């Protein structure tokens, strides 16, 4: 069975059990549960870039890790090119681990400081027994490093991570992922630790690889302007739910959800602003361990009404490919 979707996620839920003190354990029967991801669904087409945007605690990173089976999932379906990922046999998992890769936020943490670049980049080949000779291994590493923009590659083979700059480290991580020729990559804030001047180089590299190899990306970021810059579609997350999902320009310029609007309003732009009065949401994201009734955004929403405390809104399509989870979605879109 073939499908055009690299990834299909249906009603994904990831819960964490919170460790409690002894007294609490003894006297309270209710278990404290953190609903990190609370029922989200989306598709990712082949060669598409979808950004998950949200603040800390929105569940964006958890979603990425859950898809890659790095976390235990409560319920939900995850399909990788039409094949269910969960509870698959070893053969499938081996293939999945090769073709679906993750790039982590902090290039200082995500590579072993005691390994040299050669071994870091070749590690996926080694653990999956994909090369037969030393020569083949070196050739593949050389190609991967060059594709990641580290030239001449030979100069990097013997270096330790601490001898590289932040940008070079992230390129080493990319090379190590690309060596497997993946079809799907979860990129978790891949440039947020890097200086602005080298960020764009990494982003370009990712885009070039998408164009040449039709890689699908799930791009996780807190930076809406960055998401707009590189992705085809954007999903706005808040407390484990998708609030709004649609084309990148659509979300930025014609966003409907009050939370999306608040995020776009505070988006900084380099240049002189006419000092417009910025609407900044008061308060902070509530604690996700508390059981929230109704819409997760009700405590901060400027348009909140009775229904929002009773009923959790479903994603409704207000335009082809543009979905909003808000009881007022239709009214708000009409006013646009």
């Amino acid at each position, binding site marked *: 069975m073939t499908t055009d979707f690299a990834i299909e996620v249906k009603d994904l839920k990831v819960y964490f059990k919170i460790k409690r003190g002894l007294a609490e354990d003894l006297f309270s029967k209710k278990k404290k549960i953190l609903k990190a991801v609370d029922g989200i669904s989306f598709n990712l087409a082949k060669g598409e870039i979808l950004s998950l945007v949200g603040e800390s605690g929105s569940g964006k990173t958890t979603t990425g890790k859950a898809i890659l089976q790095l976390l235990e999932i409560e319920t939900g379906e995850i399909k990788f090119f039409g094949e269910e990922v969960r509870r698959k046999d070893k053969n499938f998992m081996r293939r999945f681990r090769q073709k679906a890769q993750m790039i982590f936020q902090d290039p200082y943490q995500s590579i*072993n400081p005691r390994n040299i670049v050669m071994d870091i980049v070749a*590690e996926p080949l080694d*653990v999956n027994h994909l090369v037969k000779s030393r020569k083949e291994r070196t050739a593949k590493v050389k190609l991967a490093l060059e594709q990641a923009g580290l030239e001449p590659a030979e100069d990097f083979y013997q270096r330790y991570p601490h001898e590289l700059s932040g940008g070079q480290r992230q390129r080493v991580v990319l090379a190590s992922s690309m060596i497997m020729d993946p079809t799907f990559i979860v990129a978790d804030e891949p440039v947020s630790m890097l200086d602005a001047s080298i960020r764009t180089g990494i982003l370009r590299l990712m885009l070039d690889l998408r164009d040449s190899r039709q890689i699908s990306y799930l791009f996780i970021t807190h930076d809406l302007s960055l998401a707009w810059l590189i992705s085809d579609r954007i999903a706005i997350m808040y407390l484990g739910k998708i609030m709004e999902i649609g084309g990148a320009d659509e979300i930025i310029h014609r966003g409907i959800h009050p939370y999306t609007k608040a995020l776009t309003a505070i988006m900084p732009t380099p240049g002189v602003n006419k000092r417009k009065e910025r609407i900044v949401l008061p308060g902070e994201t509530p604690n996700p361990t508390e059981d929230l009734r109704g819409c997760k955004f009700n405590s901060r929403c400027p348009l909140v009404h009775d229904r929002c405390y009773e009923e959790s809104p479903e994603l409704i399509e207000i335009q082809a490919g543009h979905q909003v989870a808000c009881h007022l979605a239709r009214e708000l879109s009409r006013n646009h």
Partner: protein
Amino acid sequence: MKLKDFGKAILHNKLALTGTIILLFFIIVATFGPLIMPFSTMEFGEVEDLLLSPSFKHLLGTDDMGRDVLANLIAGARISLLIGAVATAISMIIGTLIGILAGYFGKGIDNLLMRFTDFFLVIPWLPLMMVLAAILGTSLWNIIFVIGITGWAGTARVVRAQTLSVRERQFVERTVSIGAGHGHIMFRHILPNVFPLVFANTVLVAAVAIISETTLSFLGLGDPTMASWGMMLHYAFEGGATASGAYWYYLPPGICVVLVVLSFTLLGYAFDEILNPKLRGR
């Protein structure tokens, strides 16, 4: 930390330098000693040669069988250091393995292995060693085995704690995501990162191993055919060296044991300082 920097740090650390020099001296003596030994350890003397005090012929005198004490001391260095080294290696391997397995897998396996470790940690080691030595019989390898399997528990605890922290680091998660198995992660990623700690621990375990050997042998549980320093002390005691004032017989092996243990302890402190930069400069 790289090996070169580590070497440099040792040269700059007075404790480490002293420890290294003492230890090197004993290792050299143990290795090349028998070549320059003035007498064979099996050269028994005549009646007039028994318990001679130090002279030019016998630098450290003779024992109650008329054998040269210096020759025995040199031969003993070999055995004592060999027992110390091998027993330490066994301890370290068991301790590291159990520590990594417990820390990496966590949950039930961790619980099981740590209770097992606690058991070894709290039982009085001397009686255990005596019982084991008595059951297994007194041979060199039995002594090594007994010391080895009683000395690993502390190491296992330390390695487990470090493994727990390394396991949470992101490169481990990344390695899972590229499809690596447990063995690969434990031996290629966790082991190299806990190794400095294991290394620092080794010298302390070695000191304990040497003392254990001396104690067991002194109590008569050593291998009678292998004259370690502990055995020498045992014979000196049995031969009435203390009663007859033959200090040259019982003092040298005692001093050697103290020096070797001291050198290991000094190195242990120094490694702690070098590998924990926070302690440096205090």
